[in-house]
């Protein structure tokens, strides 16, 4: 019947010492992975798209397809 006295104090501190670094690590890793897997490729895709983008040419093509209501296709 003589058990050792259980730990009574410092329980939260012990748990935090273990779990806080893990929590921060997971959060930062997730953020970094998102940055390099999603946002950087997206920025590159937009940069490439607009590098040789001719707005007038695209507009003419769309106009010929007949999707605008303010401009008819050329020759009507």
């Amino acid at each position, binding site marked *: 019947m003589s058990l050792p006295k259980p730990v009574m104090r410092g329980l939260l501190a012990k748990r935090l010492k273990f779990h806080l670094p893990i929590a921060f690590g997971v959060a930062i890793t997730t953020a970094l992975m998102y940055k390099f897997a999603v946002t950087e490729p997206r920025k590159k895709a*937009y940069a490439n798209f607009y590098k040789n983008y001719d707005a007038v040419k695209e507009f003419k093509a769309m106009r010929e397809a007949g999707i605008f209501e303010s401009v008819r296709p050329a020759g009507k």
Partner: protein
Amino acid sequence: MLASRALSLIGKRAISASVCVRGAHGVAKVEDYTLHPYFDRRETPLPEVAYVQQLTAEQKSLKEKEKGSWAALSNEEKLALYRISFKDSFAEMNQGSEEWKTVVGGILFFLGFTGLIVLWQRKYVYGPVPHTFDPLYKEQELQRMLDMRINPVEGFSAKWDYENKQWKK
């Protein structure tokens, strides 16, 4: 005062067994469900009442002994005192069971049953879909989306090859 006068008018025989008149007050019988219940919970380790309410003579004498020095109690007596106050030990109350398997099985079974109901409903209850689901209509929709250059950077129109009029490989 009024209650006792009113009751003496009606007659002592009319007083129900559950009402006892003492002086000027009427005292109602204490119902079982109004008392604190006993339960084993990890969150509330000390319930309001002891587990065993009616003590045997042996247990009563043990309780008397408890009033003295606890060092004089043997280990069996300490255990007996514990079992008077509590039903399960923490180890006993915290042990897991296999109930979760039944629960998960029931969930999956009823999900499957719901799926059958939904299938039946789709066949026998719902009417036809709108004309906008016709294949020809869908083709025209698709062409219009490409003409409008929907999502030309990363999404829809980005995958269409406008020069060769086909999907990009």
